[in-house]
């Protein structure tokens, strides 16, 4: 071992020891910022098979019946939760949220993810911020807790409500694990990759997986998104029409 190499090894060990002694938290990747849907180099935008494609999902018989009943109910109406100003819910939110961007704000003990569509928010807790099991409130995005495995953030989401309208329909027993990691592509774009595994013994005969990639938007901003504003204005217009009709009839 050369003298230079020995010197570097010793210096590195000392630095690591000093960090431990001083109580410094390990340096983690920072996901903070605005992210938009990633397009692979050379791929056409919007040219893929879409989220509705792919092989059939390994749904249980019970799940198949529930999904078929839901699809029969909406028929060809094109109805979606979003059409009624409802957020996408997991895992749809993390898999694209309707094509809109998302913003991540990261602190050591909590990471907030805001999806622009419907201002949908996920709060991912770490360490002491993780809510005890008995105190968690079920919801469309569930409860998310996380831990670091090296440079990978592992997010586990439970306490979901049943959502048959999802691309990955699931029961309230579903557990979703996301593994987030950073990379840089051949164009120099910072890429955030989320590898998802959904486990649900009620709806699936085996775990299902998917991968979502996001591209960093330098100095990006989310825009306001008040979905219910249109409905409110239409309601006011209807009130105005009724008021005018009453006036005319007097």
């Amino acid at each position, binding site marked *: 071992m050369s003298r230079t190499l020995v010197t570097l090894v010793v210096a590195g060990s000392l630095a690591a020891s000093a960090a431990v002694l001083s109580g410094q938290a390990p340096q983690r990747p920072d996901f903070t910022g605005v992210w938009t*849907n990633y397009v692979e180099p050379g791929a*056409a*935008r*919007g*040219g893929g098979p*879409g*989220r509705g494609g792919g092989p059939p999902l390994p749904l249980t018989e019970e799940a198949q019946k529930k999904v078929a009943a839901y699809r029969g109910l909406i028929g*060809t*109406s*094109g*109805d*979606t939760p*979003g*059409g*009624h*100003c409802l957020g*996408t819910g997991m895992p*749809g939110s993390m898999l*694209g949220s*309707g*094509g*809109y961007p998302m913003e991540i704000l990261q602190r050591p003990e909590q990471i907030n993810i805001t999806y*622009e*569509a419907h201002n949908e928010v996920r709060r991912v807790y770490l360490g002491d911020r993780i809510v005890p099991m008995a105190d968690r409130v079920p919801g469309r995005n569930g409860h998310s807790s996380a831990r670091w495995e090296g440079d990978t953030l592992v997010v586990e989401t439970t306490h979901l409500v049943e959502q048959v309208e999802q691309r990955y329909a699931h029961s309230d027993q579903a557990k979703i694990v996301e593994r987030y990691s950073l990379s840089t592509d051949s164009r120099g774009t910072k890429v955030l990759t989320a590898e998802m595994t959904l486990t649900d013994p009620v709806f699936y005969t085996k775990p299902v997986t998917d991968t979502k990639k996001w591209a960093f938007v330098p100095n990006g901003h989310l*825009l*306001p*998104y*008040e*979905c*219910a*504003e*249109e*409905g*409110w*204005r*239409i*309601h006011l217009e209807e009130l105005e029409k009724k008021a005018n009709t009453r006036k005319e009839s007097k």
Partner: protein
Amino acid sequence: MKQLVSLVGALALVVTLLGSTASAHHSAVQYDFGKTATITGVVVKFQAINPHMRLTLRVTDEKGTREVELEGHSTNNMYRAGYRDGLIKVGDKITVNVAPLRDGTEGGYMVAAVTASGTRFGVQSAAERAREQQKAEGK
């Protein structure tokens, strides 16, 4: 134009996933996104809101004068396709590209507009893309 093209795929996805208006609770399936119609008129009402812009135009042509109600992409997506606050005002004469209603009723889903000042914003329709592709290939 590059900016417009780059948003087409994303917006098509948005229309598919997010559906349509809040109060009316209808869906974008009533529009034919494979076709494009052009409507020119004077702005009677314009609302830059989500999930869909709303526009009423007073149209005058050989059929006479009437008001045509339109909806369109979300303000957020139009913003990313060039729309900015104040570009459309009541009284302006503008031209819009719409995906027409499948049942033939007058109206449609606004995908792009040329404002009174000549500013264009929005996205190309599938039909426009196909025409440009054919032109580029010399067909």
